[in-house]
């Protein structure tokens, strides 16, 4: 019963979030801040993980494809497909849910327990709209670029792994990534990313905004928000894949 009540409160919260910003200049300023906080500051970790996971995917594929009947270019093809379809949009979103989700919950939660949100409301500010809308817009419109970067670096990491280990040649890998290119898969990945970005911005905001207590509860809410954001992403991934590719 409590879960249904929480889901109801979450949707009521969204009703308050998606209202016209009270002052566009203030909204613009907050939006740029959030693009920096949620997007630009995540580039380092995304680049690092993408490059190395791309490399690992390529090496593992190469090690499992040892039959002489299977052409080597399939390593590049498999690496490309797994990175574009799952690794970049879903795995990156789970990582961002951990990094950005805990940041959102703890920052909004701390504002709640130190009465800063009350201060906003007393001033006549729609606190949900002011705090959450810039995060949603920043995440939904910026994360697709992060995921495109993750795709590029993941594939590049795969190529670099072959180059460094000698398990497959550069030409085979490039032939594989060029083979059977299907642009809809990129669209599918970006649609998923935008949906996940919405979840990453709103679910942790919900946990932060409605936290009660002190710093310990804020910590607990951060953990819960990461867990629930990840669960929602995994579930939505299942349904979106069925809807968009099924």
């Amino acid at each position, binding site marked *: 019963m409590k879960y249904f009540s929480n889901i109801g409160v979450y949707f009521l919260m969204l009703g308050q979030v998606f209202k016209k910003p*009270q*002052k566009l*200049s203030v909204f613009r300023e907050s939006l740029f801040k959030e693009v920096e906080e949620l997007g630009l500051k995540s580039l380092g970790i995304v680049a690092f993980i993408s490059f190395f996971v791309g490399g690992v995917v390529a090496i593992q594929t190469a090690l499992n494809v040892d039959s002489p009947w299977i052409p080597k270019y399939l390593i590049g093809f498999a690496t490309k497909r797994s990175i574009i379809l799952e690794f970049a949009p879903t795995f990156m979103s789970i990582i961002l849910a951990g990094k950005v989700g805990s940041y959102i919950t703890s920052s909004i939660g701390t504002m709640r327990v130190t009465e*800063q949100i009350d201060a906003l409301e007393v*001033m*006549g500010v729609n606190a949900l709209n002011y705090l959450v809308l810039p995060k949603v817009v920043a995440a939904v419109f910026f994360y697709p670029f992060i995921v495109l970067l993750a795709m590029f670096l993941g594939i590049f990491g795969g190529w670099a792994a072959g180059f460094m280990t000698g398990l497959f040649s550069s030409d085979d890998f490039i032939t594989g990534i060029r083979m059977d290119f299907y642009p809809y898969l990129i669209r599918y990945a970006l649609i998923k990313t935008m949906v996940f970005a919405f979840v990453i911005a709103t679910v942790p905001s919900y946990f932060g905004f409605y936290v009660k207590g002190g710093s310990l509860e804020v910590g607990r809410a951060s953990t819960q928000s990461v867990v629930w954001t990840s669960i929602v992403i995994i579930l939505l991934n299942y349904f979106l894949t069925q809807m968009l590719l099924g």
Partner: protein
Amino acid sequence: MIEVNDIYKSFGEQEVLKGVSTTFEKGETSMIIGSSGSGKTVFLKCLLGLFAPDSGDICYDGRHYRKMSTSEKRDLRKEMGMVFQGGALFDSETIEDNIKFPLKMFTDQSEEEMLDRVNFVLNRVKLENVNQKFPAELSGGMQKRVAIARAIVMNPKYLFCDEPNSGLDPQTAIVIDNLIQEITDEYQMITVINSHDMNSVMEIGEKIIFLKSGIKEWEGSYKTIFKTDNQAVTDFVYSSNLYKKVREVYNK
């Protein structure tokens, strides 16, 4: 004038306010006192519109809160200033940005005009050279003064303070009390302060409301509070050793 008419507020089974009625006048500093759990904070939050009373009504200069739309309620809040117990300053923003925030949000003033206003209110609360500092870099008393500056930057009609002296030394507490009183007189605001600091009550309590278990037990002023024979009030007032001694000396 703020008229509070018979308000009730409960949280689940727990009844926190039980039919409180009173009025707050322009240019007057009113204190709400009572021990912890007496309903002071909930009462103040009802006055601020952060909690909606279950029944009863609050009327702000003829405007009934219960009959207001959401946007009217938001507009009403622009006429309110609030000093929170912990200051509630935005800790990731500078003092200047903290005070400028309501101006940026609700006025079309230029940067220069906003800066002039920020400097004016900072000067009014006797703070200098703090514009680019962050709240954590200031002492508790200075943070309270910044909170007062932010609360008055929009020239509010109503000023609410929740325990403005908590955590301050007695001398700084007197400075803050006097500042609130001066500002109330100067801008002819309606000021309501939540406190259990009897020194503050004696300094600036032109009107005092004593709450006990969510009921208004007594109403008077700092001139009458020592003369009352209401047992709950005298128990509260003379709970500190200092006031007990003052009473003994006074009675001798």
